[in-house]
């Protein structure tokens, strides 16, 4: 009996795999594979971001009838934020749809690394917005990877600029002390060399304090913070580490409005669990929170009123993660539009054409206004040389109920970041025997 059920089960599974690979290829449909994660420790981020992204694509289909008549189709694949599963999803989604998967956005630095070589072989552009490999911003070495909007290093320089402005000028940073509380992982450590370089440049001292994963115990770290008496604390947190840090800060009496988090510390999911302690906490973000932007309203009018929305908890529409998903959607759709303008309107773009679309993507403030996303996300211009495209962030403060925008877009310190990116990319190129492209020959 048991054997029979098992056989039956595997037979069903096998046959469904077979049928899925033989899905009918339909013309004039642009397929976008979504390696999403809706279970596990990071489900809050995954369901919010992929939900917002799907809703934006649904908006484009419902309101505009697709991109110049090309409907968007998508399929999710559950990665559980696991690298091996992510690779499986990449391979599974690769050959789906009319032209195969045309863009891969895994929302996980680990999966990004795992498919880094594969995307170049398979000619599928990979877009990593606000995570992933920082030095991939050098498009000469990484033609297929687009760490768009801003990377961790750029964001860190903007953060120091923000702190400088709060102190009343960059020269006032001299003699100040900043504590960098970081998640003790590759992700957390990435900004240490940059902070050290900035400390030297502006004359402040920086103390790095690691928190081991998952970070739900930070007593000793915050006692250390109390001993150090810093002027500011930078929180480079992840998941459960964020609310714990905020609560621990309240316990040792460190003012939360002197704490600045990265964008993975700045969502509702990071502050609400900390309760009142989170009031005043500041975080950087390349997108803002709020449902009162025209683009979010359009989604509610065109998608949710027709009951086609993706979010189960409608209260999350307009949250930081949801809006970040909308940003993913805008960038993806605008890249399709850009590619179509060159390779033929109303045609389905393949991976190579999409890559061109991403590389020549330019969304200025006028275009943002047309999209209903003015102030919602920074304007960007991607080039062959610079796959980051923007580098701007806004700072938001938690008022106890919601995130309030504190600043306008703050530019990164490109003079400091760019040489470090080029150096790191050149090292990678040497290790992998890649000859960097000559950008003057790209068109």
């Amino acid at each position: 009996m048991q054997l029979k059920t098992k056989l039956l089960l595997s037979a069903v599974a096998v046959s469904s795999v077979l049928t899925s690979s033989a899905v009918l290829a339909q013309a004039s449909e642009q397929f976008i594979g979504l390696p999403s994660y809706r279970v596990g420790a990071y489900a809050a981020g995954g369901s919010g971001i992929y939900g917002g992204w799907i809703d934006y694509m649904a908006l484009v289909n419902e309101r505009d009838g697709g991109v110049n008549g090309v409907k968007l189709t998508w399929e999710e694949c559950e990665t559980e934020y696991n690298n091996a599963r992510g690779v499986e999803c990449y391979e599974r989604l690769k050959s789906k749809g009319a032209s195969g998967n045309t863009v891969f956005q895994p929302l996980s630095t680990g999966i990004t690394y795992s498919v880094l070589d594969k995307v170049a072989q398979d000619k599928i552009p990979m877009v990593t917005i606000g995570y992933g490999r920082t030095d991939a911003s050098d498009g000469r070495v990484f033609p297929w990877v687009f760490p768009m909007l801003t990377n961790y290093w750029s964001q860190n320089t903007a953060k120091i600029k923000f702190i400088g402005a709060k102190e009343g000028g960059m020269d006032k940073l001299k003699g100040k002390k900043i504590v960098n509380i970081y998640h003790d992982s590759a992700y957390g450590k990435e900004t240490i060399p940059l902070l050290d370089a900035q400390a030297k440049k502006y004359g402040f001292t920086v103390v790095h304090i690691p928190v081991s994963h998952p970070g739900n115990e930070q007593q000793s770290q915050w006692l250390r913070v109390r001993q150090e008496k810093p002027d500011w604390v930078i929180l480079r947190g992840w998941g459960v580490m964020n609310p714990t840090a905020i609560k621990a800060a309240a316990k040792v009496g460190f003012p939360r409005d002197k704490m600045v988090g990265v964008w993975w510390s700045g969502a509702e999911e990071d502050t609400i669990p900390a309760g009142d302690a989170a009031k005043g906490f500041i975080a950087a973000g390349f997108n803002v929170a709020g449902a009162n932007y025209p683009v979010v309203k359009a989604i509610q009018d065109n998608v949710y009123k027709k009951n086609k929305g993706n979010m189960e908890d409608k209260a999350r529409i307009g949250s930081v993660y949801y809006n970040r998903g909308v940003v993913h959607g805008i960038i993806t759709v605008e890249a399709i539009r850009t590619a179509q303008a060159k390779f033929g309107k109303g045609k389905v773009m393949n991976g190579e054409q999409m890559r061109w679309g991403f590389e020549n993507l330019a969304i200025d403030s006028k275009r943002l206004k047309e999209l209903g996303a003015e102030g919602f996300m920074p304007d960007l211009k991607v080039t062959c040389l610079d796959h980051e495209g923007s580098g701007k962030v806004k700072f938001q403060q938690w008022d106890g109920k919601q995130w309030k925008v504190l600043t306008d877009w703050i530019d990164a310190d490109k003079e400091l970041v760019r040489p470090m990116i080029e150096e790191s990319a050149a090292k990678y190129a040497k290790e992998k025997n890649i000859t960097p492209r000559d950008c003057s020959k790209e068109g």
Partner: protein
Amino acid sequence: MLYREAGQFKATYAADQQIFPIRQDRIGIQLLLALAFVAVPLFASEYWLKAIMVPFLVFSLAALGLNILTGYAGQLSLGSAAFMAVGAFASYNFMLRIDGMPLLVAFALGGLMAALVGIAFGLPSLRIKGFYLAVATLAAQFFIVWLLTKVGWFSNDSSSGVITAQEMVILGYRFDSPQAKYLLVLSIVAVMALMAKNMVRSSVGRAWMAVRDMDVAAEVIGIRIMYTKLLAFAVSSFYCGVAGALYAFAYLGTVEPEGFNLDLSFKILFMIIIGGVGSISGAFLGSAFIVLLPIFLDVLVQDVFAGLLSPSIASNMQLMVFGGLIIFFLIVEPHGLARLWQIAKEKLRLWPFPH
């Protein structure tokens, strides 16, 4: 009827001592090998080779390693993923730092490094047993991942701590097509599985099992406890190390220390529990269950139930079904899938006249 062994006489010691004494088993395994070596690379699609078969084989190898330690020698370990990490990072560094290093030698050296680390972390097993030992091996898990993140040298000072495996070239042939990668992994796994099978049938394996069943009695009959236990740790870590190297070189290409976390160790432990503790085929069955079933469930949900269920329910449903199946199999057969196969075989021998 098909499985009747009547009439098969063993006239020599060699015939009596072969791995598969029954002719039907021999034919079965030959068919299986022919299928794996010839039919699969000929007919399987790129997706099947790259995303299903290679990780299945790699995890089978890791489970095999843990099964030697836990299933045969009775030493519970939660550090398998860490030993995989040692194998992956060591192979990478051997390839990086020594010019003209042959790939297979780098894999073997990576395995040896893992074996050395395994011996070091196996030392507590001389004093402590059972769950306490599991906690001691947990230290290996955390320490090694921490060390690989902390010391930049291991990842060639990459700012993010990740390593990118070199191209796989053996005697000038580049293993870059999915078929070539699959065949390379399959060959290594097949040879190592054969070695494991022979090891557990020999005096070494018998010593392991004696220690597992009762170490005081084993000592009394003259088995050197220290040597036996540490050998089990070394061999097991060697297998895990090679699996880690294959995971990095043939499957992911780029790996980070965080990828070899406690979750992965648990996964490998579940593989041998589901597959069958103390059995070689159990490692393969368990790996198939843990690696492939979630993928099948996801495909099933995406294709059959797409649109019917909201996405987050669909995703959680897979986990629930998967968990339910684990419980189901453990209830009907606590000794794992390998035992189910064994029972089936015994019934087949009598079929169709069981009385």
